[in-house]
């Protein structure tokens, strides 16, 4: 059993322009995806959840959303939407996947698809401040209350960004839970079933809360 408590951290984001011109057609999007910074790609795939935007589970990244809403290209939106930044080995691998899909779609088109005025793709990135909230989780059974209290930004930092940082190891909560006995193992196993792509931060929190409740209730029933 790990005696070290879990330190709940949080983060805040300030979005800034990437410094690239906006893209008004598919060719420009492809060219700029190849030139943009890794943090810009990360922002459009992962950090987007922290921006003031609607939690739209239909689209898993900004490129897919733009392809569907602005370009009206459902095929492209589907191809881009299925990309998984959490399983890509690196941002550069993700970049090559996006580029390949855009290249392929351009080759399939008999003209360069463009968007209506006002619907360009804007390349942005962000600076993030990370800090300790002072909240501590001392044992696995406390995770339910902590999840209910913590901000959406804490959920993002530990569960979404945590998964991106840790890759196979999973999210920050699970990494800690696994070294905290059988209950921790069971909670971590339950969390591993979450596909982050289909949640906004509020619904992600609700899902983690429900999973924790189920595991804790199950444990309580067994011990009776």
């Amino acid at each position, binding site marked *: 059993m790990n005696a070290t408590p879990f330190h709940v951290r949080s983060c*805040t984001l300030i979005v800034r322009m990437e410094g690239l011109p906006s893209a008004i057609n598919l060719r420009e999007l492809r060219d700029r995806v190849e030139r943009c910074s890794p943090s810009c790609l990360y922002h459009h795939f992962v950090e987007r959840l922290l921006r*003031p935007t609607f939690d739209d589970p239909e689209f898993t990244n900004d490129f897919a959303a733009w392809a569907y809403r602005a370009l009206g290209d459902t095929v492209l939106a589907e191809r881009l939407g299925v990309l998984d930044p959490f399983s890509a080995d690196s941002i550069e691998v993700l970049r090559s996947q996006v580029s390949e899909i855009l290249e392929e779609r351009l080759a399939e088109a008999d003209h360069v698809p463009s968007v209506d005025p*006002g619907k360009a793709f804007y390349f942005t990135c962000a600076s993030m401040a990370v800090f300790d909230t002072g909240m501590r989780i001392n044992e696995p059974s406390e995770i339910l209350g902590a999840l209910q209290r913590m901000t959406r930004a804490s959920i993002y930092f530990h569960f979404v960004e945590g998964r991106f940082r840790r890759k196979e190891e999973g999210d920050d909560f699970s990494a800690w839970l696994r070294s905290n006995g059988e209950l921790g193992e069971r909670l971590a196993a339950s969390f591993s079933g979450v596909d982050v792509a289909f949640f906004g931060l509020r619904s992600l929190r609700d899902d983690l809360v429900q999973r924790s409740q189920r595991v804790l209730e199950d444990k309580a029933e067994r011990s009776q």
Partner: protein
Amino acid sequence: MARNIASYRRVVGEESISQLRRLASQLQGRTVVHVNSTRYGGGVAEILEWLTSLMNDLGLQADWEVMEGTPPFFQATKKIHNGLQGFRVDFTASDIQAYDAAAEVNASRLRDKLSGANFVFIHDPQPAALLGSCPARRGKWIWRCHIDASRPHRPVWRWLEPVVSKYDASVFSMPQFARALPHPQFIIAPSIDPLSDKNRFLPESEVEDVARRFRLDPGRPILTQISRFDRFKDPVGVIRAFQMLRVSPRPQLALAGGGAADDPEGAAVLEEVRAGAEGDPDIHILDLPPDSHRAINALQRASHVIIQKSTREGFGLTVTEGMWKSKPVIGGDAGGIRLQVHDFHTGFLVNSPEGAALRIRYLLQHPRLSARMGASAHAFVRDNFLLTRHLREYLTLMLSLERGGTDRMDLP
């Protein structure tokens, strides 16, 4: 009115307030000066009132200064403002002279304070030239552009660009509004104050009283558009949409706005609106005074559907306000409305009076779904467009500038 961050706890929760305090703890004692061109009236003055107050409450030393100027200066800045928004204006050498003269007069009054501050936020183009008059600057200077500067009138931008390029950073409300500049350009969306008269909770009795005062029948659905009588808000299109409705019970339409008295264009639009509504007792044209915040709040709360059928829009805070009151919004597919209105989730985006009529019918036909969309709209605003998020982004921006603009800042 002095604000206190703790009073927002019951709206956004303890942890969000604690998050603001943690961030602000890294900026204790920093001097921040905001400069704009008016103390009263308008969205920027409203923002600066709470922003300054809450920054002080969090331990920063924030101050708010207002440009003083002569009528020629304000005529020039009106042209600059309109020109930045893309209107053709006759921007002359005498305008530039009046603008520069006012900058010099204000700089001599404010130079010491501005030069010594850790952060200076210059709001909109009116005070932008102050930077050039403060060569011994100690802190970071940020140009905060609240308007859509994406398609400016070229002569105005050619003149303003070298002025604002010298800043350390700029802030725009949406990526779509930004101009390419040789420094970091940050994005901070606007917000609403959930405790202001315009947005605070109102007792049902007050909502009913206001509806009665405006001769609205509480037994029939109420559709409301709140906005200036401006062609870009398409009030005539809203009337056309309303007149296409063939539903029972017949709804009522409230078009509430103001600003027509001091705006010749507004007066003309108001006349067109009145002409369009003539003979229909269910269309209520309400030309309200600018301080009708509680009445507008009550009107939005009494409504079943909020409409904002703009054909061109900035961010669209009236949409945010309607959503905060748990109402689905039918919004024009323009500007910041696109950020806020999501089909079948928080309302519907429309492109024509026909589209608006169709979506109104849909929402009236499905009251339970309409209520769910209203709840979703409220949650969306709570998570994204309240002033606590706005303040958090200002604090993060200051930390980012202080620490050299890195992608990641690990705070102690």
